[in-house]
């Protein structure tokens, strides 16, 4: 074990003594969540190809605890929307988001998912934030895998710092209500 190169996530700030370690529950839960986020890839076009690269061995999103892609929305933590979302596809994205259990985060990858991109036309949704709340936007057309990883690390930071009560707070409920989500 002493020769292992595996790095363990750093412990949150706390009080350490002989045989005990005291810290806040929030930071402990945040630590656990942030290092085992299961992404649900919702890839519709070229950004999805970049995601495949991000996921594969060269860039390896598994280094950030996300090697377990969840193709079931029920077990996923992060919805990664990558690609052009047409208006006809919008209800599907929303359905997938609704099927996810709290806590859930949304990573919007690429210009199309963020704003409609070059497709300013009658058939394309002008950004997924018109139907679901987005936590992190990754710009680019398409973004490099490094950018997608950076976006993912931003989600990790959010997960680390989130209080366990956040999802029950009226602000969060109001945010969901603004999207018509109960």
């Amino acid at each position, binding site marked *: 074990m002493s020769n292992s190169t595996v790095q363990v996530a750093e412990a949150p700030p706390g009080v350490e003594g002989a045989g005990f370690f005291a810290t806040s529950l929030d930071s402990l839960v945040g630590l656990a969540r942030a290092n085992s986020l299961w992404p649900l890839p919702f890839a519709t076009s070229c950004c999805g190809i970049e995601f495949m690269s991000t996921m594969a061995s060269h860039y390896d999103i598994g280094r950030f605890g996300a090697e377990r892609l969840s193709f079931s929305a029920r077990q996923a933590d992060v919805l990664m929307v990558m690609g052009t979302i047409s*208006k006809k596809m919008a209800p599907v994205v929303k359905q997938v988001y609704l099927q996810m259990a709290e806590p859930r985060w949304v990573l919007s990858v690429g210009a199309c998912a963020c704003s*409609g991109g070059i497709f300013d036309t009658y058939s394309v949704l*002008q950004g997924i934030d*018109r139907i679901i709340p987005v936590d992190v936007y990754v710009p680019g057309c398409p973004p490099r895998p490094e950018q997608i990883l950076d976006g993912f690390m931003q989600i990790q930071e959010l997960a680390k710092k989130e209080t366990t009560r956040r999802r029950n707070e009226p602000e969060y409920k109001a945010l969901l209500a603004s999207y018509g989500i109960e």
Partner: protein
Amino acid sequence: MMNEKIIEALQAQFGEEGVYGIGESHGILQVTTAVENIVPMIHFLYAHPVFKFQFLTDLAGIHFPDAKGQELGVIYHLHSLENNVRLWIKAYAPIEAPTFPTITGLFATANWMEREAFDFYGIIFEGHPNLTRILNMDEMDYHPMRKEYPLEDATRHDKIDELFGR
């Protein structure tokens, strides 16, 4: 050679006034006809012993807003696989009553093509088994390829004319 024969045969069948707008593009013959002639003409070409136009390559709608009385058109792309000859047949109808007879009775493949033309141009194909939207979302309340509608998404608020020098 073949093209002249086709014109001759069509004019013999439908009269000089029934086949007009004759032209050629990339060696492909194009003719225009009246809406009521479309189905008989395609059937005639299908059953013709020599021409045998038995393949419908494509069927598309088109909108000419300035052509009064014949704003909306349908273009049929036929292919005679045996002779390796292609043919375009065009027909136009006024935008107030854009009704065309369906060709699904002869070509099953026309089903989705006619639905597409209906979806984007609002062309009504009478006798079509299921004339509903095929590509756009069902809630859409207009036919987006008609030129009276802007191509840009109507829900964008951040695209101010000033920023684009308009």
